[in-house]
């Protein structure tokens, strides 16, 4: 049995434009359907229609078309933020909430709770409170709570967007379990990287229209549509795509092992890795942390003796699982936290004694969730907020030019909270251009961004470096980290494991194994084939392979 989406058109009000225009596709039973598309293409609106939110809770708009499901078909949704979805103090309370609403008998409720706890392997969490769970655990409990209702279709809206690598692995395991049980699942996420193994069917939307409807392999073969949709595909597939443009007869691959085999057929088997020449140019130290220790009131040691150096015009990424102390550490750099012991020096001068606002003239932190930062009435005013607050001169022409450069000019008079998530994030990042700060810290800057916006982010970072700024990034997007960083600082349980160039760290498999983070495929393959240096992005890797073929 499949579920048919037929000719859906929707606009939020009579005088607004259509957000969805004649959307039609099938959701096959027992398959995983991925709905992808750039930021603002209508994915969230489509989820609202499929889940019945439109028109039940939001009857105001104009809706045409149909989603042919019987009255007894049960559709459940797992949202991006489990903290906004879970009802119940404890895990058992949260899981049983939905089935209690169905008026089932007590023994049936107990049976279903036990079933989902076993299925998702979270029995060990049952007596915990939801507030003490990690992001991945909370999301797993959220999935359990809707699974207990035995939905015919399970819709997941960007379920791993704010999770660390461990959290993503947990959800991958959960999805594999669901697939094995034949659960019909729809995943709305523009990042195919984390669930490409289990996707069966891909539906691509641009500007509210279906531009692709086919299986995963057809999608991976269609390079043009991948580019238009701004979908983040697995890096192995990206390598194949770029390499196949330059090399004939390359067999398709989408896993590391397949890549080793197929590329090996081209250039020969693995070789011993030639030691990297250190091409890192040191520059002036602008921000230094010395022996930072932080113990909170409850006795928890969040940071233990963290030393770090941040140089001018460099990009330094901070890696680590959730709870490793990354955000706690950067909050010491901008003065939000004061260390229990240790110092932070900016241009040689200690920052203690200054307020956060005073420090922000030198060191600015852009938060993870743009809605914590947005409050002006227009996009333009939001862009120049930092300049206004810090008394920095700017020209209107420069500000409008920046908006135009990043496709926000037509939204300049719009209320910032009305923008899509990715554009909101971009706006908060752009506002630092008009700040006096020389050190800019981004906490998870890629949250909510499609590939187009990520490319804009890379461009923004290059421009900031070009202006002599220092950029510090906290990110779980490992391929991006290796692509744009000069140095990587790794934290684990509040302790600094290392700070070094990405070239040097590419050889440190033991460190990445300790923090349970996998190196990007380009790095793994570079080392496997003994390239002259461990490549950090697809284009340089492909060029190295092509050069070797020519030789």
């Amino acid at each position, binding site marked *: 049995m499949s579920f048919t989406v037929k000719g859906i058109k929707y606009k939020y009000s009579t005088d607004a434009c259509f957000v969805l225009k004649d959307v039609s596709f099938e959701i096959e039973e027992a398959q995983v359907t991925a709905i992808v598309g750039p930021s603002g293409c209508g994915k969230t609106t489509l989820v609202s229609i499929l889940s019945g939110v439109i028109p039940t809770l939001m009857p105001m708009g104009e809706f045409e078309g149909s989603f042919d499901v019987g009255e007894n078909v049960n559709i459940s949704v797992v949202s991006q933020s489990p903290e906004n979805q879970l009802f119940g103090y404890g895990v058992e309370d949260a899981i049983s909430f939905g089935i209690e609403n169905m*008026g089932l008998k007590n023994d049936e409720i107990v049976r279903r709770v036990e079933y989902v706890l076993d299925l998702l392997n979270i029995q060990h969490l049952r007596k915990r409170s939801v507030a003490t769970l990690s992001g991945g655990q909370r999301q797993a409990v959220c999935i359990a709570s809707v699974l207990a209702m035995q939905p015919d279709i399970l819709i997941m809206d960007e379920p791993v967007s704010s999770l660390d690598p461990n959290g993503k692995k947990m959800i991958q395991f959960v999805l594999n379990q669901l697939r094995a049980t034949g659960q019909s699942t729809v995943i709305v996420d523009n990042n195919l990287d984390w669930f490409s193994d289990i996707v069966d069917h891909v539906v691509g939307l641009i500007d509210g229209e279906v531009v692709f409807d086919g299986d995963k392999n057809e999608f991976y073969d269609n390079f043009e549509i991948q580019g238009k949709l701004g979908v983040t595909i697995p890096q192995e597939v990206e390598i194949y795509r770029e390499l196949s443009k330059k090399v004939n007869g390359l067999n398709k691959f989408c896993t590391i092992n397949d890549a080793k085999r197929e590329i090996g057929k081209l250039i020969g088997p693995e070789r011993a890795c030639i030691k990297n020449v250190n091409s890192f140019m040191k520059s002036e130290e602008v921000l230094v942390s010395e022996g930072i220790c932080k113990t909170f009131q409850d006795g928890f040691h969040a940071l233990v003796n963290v030393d770090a150096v941040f140089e001018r015009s460099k990009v330094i990424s901070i890696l680590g699982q959730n709870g490793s102390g990354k955000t706690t550490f950067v909050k010491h750099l901008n003065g939000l936290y004061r260390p229990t012991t240790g110092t932070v020096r900016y241009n040689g001068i200690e920052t203690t004694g200054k307020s956060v*606002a005073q420090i922000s003239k030198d060191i600015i932190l852009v938060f993870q969730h743009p809605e914590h930062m947005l409050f002006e009435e227009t996009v333009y005013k939001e862009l120049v907020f930092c300049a206004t607050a810090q008394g920095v001169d700017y020209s209107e022409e420069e500000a409008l030019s920046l908006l135009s450069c990043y496709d926000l000019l037509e939204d300049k008079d719009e209320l910032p909270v009305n923008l899509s998530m990715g554009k909101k994030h971009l706006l908060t990042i752009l506002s630092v251009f008009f*700040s006096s700060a020389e050190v800019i810290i981004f906490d998870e800057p890629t949250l909510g961004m499609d590939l187009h916006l990520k490319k804009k982010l890379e461009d923004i970072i290059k421009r900031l470096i070009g202006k002599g700024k220092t950029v510090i990034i906290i990110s779980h997007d490992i391929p991006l980290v290796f692509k744009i960083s000069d140095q990587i600082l790794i934290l684990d349980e509040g302790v600094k494991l290392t700070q070094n160039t990405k070239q040097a760290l590419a050889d440190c498999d033991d460190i990445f194994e300790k923090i349970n983070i996998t190196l990007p495929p380009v790095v793994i393959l570079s080392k496997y084939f003994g390239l002259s240096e461990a490549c950090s992005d697809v284009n340089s890797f492909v060029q190295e392979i092509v050069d070797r073929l020519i030789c």
Partner: protein
Amino acid sequence: MGDFLQYVEMESFLHKLDPRTKFMFFIIMSVLTSFVKSGTALLFLFVVFTAIWITSHIGKFIIVLAKKVKVLLLFIFLLWLVLGAFKINEGPVIYRTALTLFDNSYTFSLDWFDLYKGSVFALRIFLMISAFYTVILSTNFSQIILGLRSWNVPYAVAFGIGLVFQIIPMIIKEFSTIMEAQSSRGLEVDKCSAIAKMKNYVIISLPLLFRVLGKGHSISLAMHYYKLNFKVKRTSFKLIRASYLDAIFVSVTVISTAITAVLQYMFYIPL
């Protein structure tokens, strides 16, 4: 303490009590502190409360509460002091003087009785607030809902009350994060004049409002996803049962109430 006005997870005897027992405690103590005006009786109640706090290891949270409400208590104490200062009472005098204002004669008289009266009213308020806080500290919102449901309170009301306690920590955390985010962008909330600080706090209220509205929207969506329907008869995964600890606690509550009533009768000084 970041967890003020929130449930604190602990393994105390208070946490193990049936929520209905704690509700009864709160209702009885609220009524008692509303009617009891004897200083001796109130002191006895304070001793009982202190014993409960110490045995359940929540003393440090009550100290935090006391610090937070000290201004209110001081205001109440001083208010009654001032109101009684222009009345002449029996008993020891601390300071008395005659004064003339606008050709009228007044007697300013600070008596022991004024101090007693101010203390009684301040102690009553503190006991009322701390009875409520004792229940909130030791009962999570799921237990609150279960307890109210077992008393046949309509689920819509019980769920609403539980939701308030679920959302309060979220809003406190959101406010704190927004403050951090805006000061990180240059909004001065520390080293500035009181007026500038007030103005900047008002500025922060707008993103807080957006976030609260956003959370409200997400919660209403979640209620839809979980098919919450107040017209459907709900069942329950968990059942609450009273234990011997509840019997002990109820006995303590009843005995304390009886002793308080006796002390009120024996040692009441008309206020």
